[in-house]
């Protein structure tokens, strides 16, 4: 699904806009560059059990500064799609372009940071050393590294835990460290693969607010894989709904909730409407369709046709 076409009046603005709809944010900062273009991508896995069609015919454009969620049932290939964008795996056919370059080049240029579901922190490094890791790999000087690490830990509000070790932190805190690490190189894109899946609901909601704050502060483009419909709606500019295997993009839903989104947003009618819309799409119904339309729509969904 293509994104919005660049509109007139693309004035450059400085600073982080508050209380703007995402539509407006996209047009800030110059042209509405599409930062990620996935075109005609298929992914087939060869396992000892046979061939698996993970993804089929994926076309997706993500624009600068957007927050895009990928949501779908287990096995729909959303994590695979994320990995394709990050050049951690290659498409069987089709192309992935990031920042105007092939995905591989974008990875080698360190254009993105990644956060997994597990924090994947190194036991043998303190919190600050973990955050410093990408900076060391890049070859930054000691002084620059220390400064950047300090800034990142400030960003995720863990400055007092710089010298702690991962085992001393709770799951939510460890995940914040991994977010700090992902942002250490100030990448233009942040890839997140169900980062809060292992956390409890309350911590999860808090982390959602944190991620939103960080996103608005840094202006990074975020591609976010999740299982949770409320999370997707709360965080995103757009929600990409995917079908079960073979994964296809069923629908892209614009989320027009105003920013910044707060706990109050979670109680608005529009929020619930959007959640329902996503849920219905996942179930194979278009928004507004009645339950009697269920059987045929679900069958259509199962057969893999785009709903």
């Amino acid at each position, binding site marked *: 699904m293509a994104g919005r076409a660049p509109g007139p009046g693309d004035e450059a603005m400085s600073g982080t806009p508050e209380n703007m709809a995402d539509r407006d944010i996209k047009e800030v900062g110059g042209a509405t560059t599409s930062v990620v273009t996935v075109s005609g991508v298929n992914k087939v*896995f*060869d*396992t*000892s*059990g046979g061939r698996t069609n993970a993804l089929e015919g994926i076309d997706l454009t993500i624009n600068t500064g957007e927050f895009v969620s990928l949501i779908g049932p287990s096995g729909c290939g959303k994590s695979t799609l994320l*990995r394709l964008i990050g*050049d*951690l*795996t*290659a498409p069987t056919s089709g192309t992935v372009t990031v920042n105007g370059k092939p995905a591989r080049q974008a990875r080698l240029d360190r254009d993105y940071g990644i956060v997994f579901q597990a924090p994947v922190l190194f036991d043998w490094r303190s919190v600050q050393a973990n955050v410093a890791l990408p900076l060391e790999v890049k070859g930054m000087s000691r002084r620059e590294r220390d400064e950047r690490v300090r800034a990142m830990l400030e960003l995720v509000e863990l400055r007092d835990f710089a010298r702690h070790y991962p085992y001393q932190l709770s799951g939510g805190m460890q995940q914040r460290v991994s977010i700090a690490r992902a942002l250490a190189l100030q990448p233009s894109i942040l890839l997140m693969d169900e980062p809060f899946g292992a956390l409890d609901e309350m911590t999860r909601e808090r982390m959602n607010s944190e991620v939103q704050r960080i996103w608005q502060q840094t202006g990074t483009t975020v591609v976010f894989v999740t299982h949770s419909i409320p999370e997707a709606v709360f965080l995103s500019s757009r929600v990409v709904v995917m079908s079960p295997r073979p994964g296809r993009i069923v629908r892209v839903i614009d989320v027009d909730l105003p920013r910044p989104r707060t706990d109050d947003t979670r109680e608005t009618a529009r929020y619930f409407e959007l959640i329902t819309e996503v849920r219905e799409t996942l179930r194979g119904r278009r928004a507004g369709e009645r339950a009697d339309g269920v059987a045929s729509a679900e069958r259509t969904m199962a057969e893999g046709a785009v709903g």
Partner: protein
Amino acid sequence: MTSSGDVARRSRASAAVSPARAILRGAALALLFVVLLIGVWEGAKALGGDPWRFRDASGAETIYRPPFKWDIASDLALPHVWKIWEALAAPVQRQQTQSLAEFLVGAAVHTGQEAALGFLFGGVFGLALAAVFVHSKLAERAFMPYIVASQTIPILALAPLIAFAFGNGLVGIVIVASYLTFFPVAIAQLRGLTSPDPRALELMRSCAASRWTIFWKVRMPASLPYLFAALKIAATASIVGAIVGEGNPGGSQFGLGRSILNFNEQYGSAPEKLWAAILASALLGLAFFLAIRIAELVVLRGRPGAGAG
């Protein structure tokens, strides 16, 4: 073009290999290794050994002189591979009808039996000990430090003594082999029995399963991978124990331990015999190892990580 992420995923997917294929691969590797070993062996002799003498049918002798002279490649230190082969076919002693090969097979069987018995007793004792420790924290705290410390005591060093104390018979050596077996088995089995997720145990208790049931249905199956890892170590240890135990002066004349010592004394005149005895020991060790490996592949068939060696 694939990236490492793909490789990691693929290797995980293809980790389950059938036992038949594993065996074939193992055999192929072993063969390759033997060929390479012989290549290096004779290669060293070709470069720096004693002159090679060939006698053909007409009685004429061809001599090949290697370019260098290395003590370690001399005919005494490193007999030709075919000389060892010939010695196997020749009588074990002058005036004896039994060939060296037959003798060594008999010795290997003798030692193997001692080791196997020790392995059996030690294994059972280790399993029992682990079962007791898993159910009694007190017992574990009381005895575990000694069991751990006992591994730093060179029990192997006591082997001849123990064999002597028990009259140089089967009993002493079996005791040594049992001792060397029971520790790795007890430790590994304990780790295995305590490995199940506590939630799995809670699940069993929630449907009023007795401790006995929990033990057999949850703990034992979980412990098997750990057990097999230890059994492989214990198998070699029991053979080593048997060999060293037999080395006791006044011990039985059969068995590989005694043969090694005897052939060591005859090394000057017939170095091939000692090498043959060592070869027999190596094969015995491998035989035990393979037996357990095959048992493991059968028992743990289908489990992830089976066949990890």
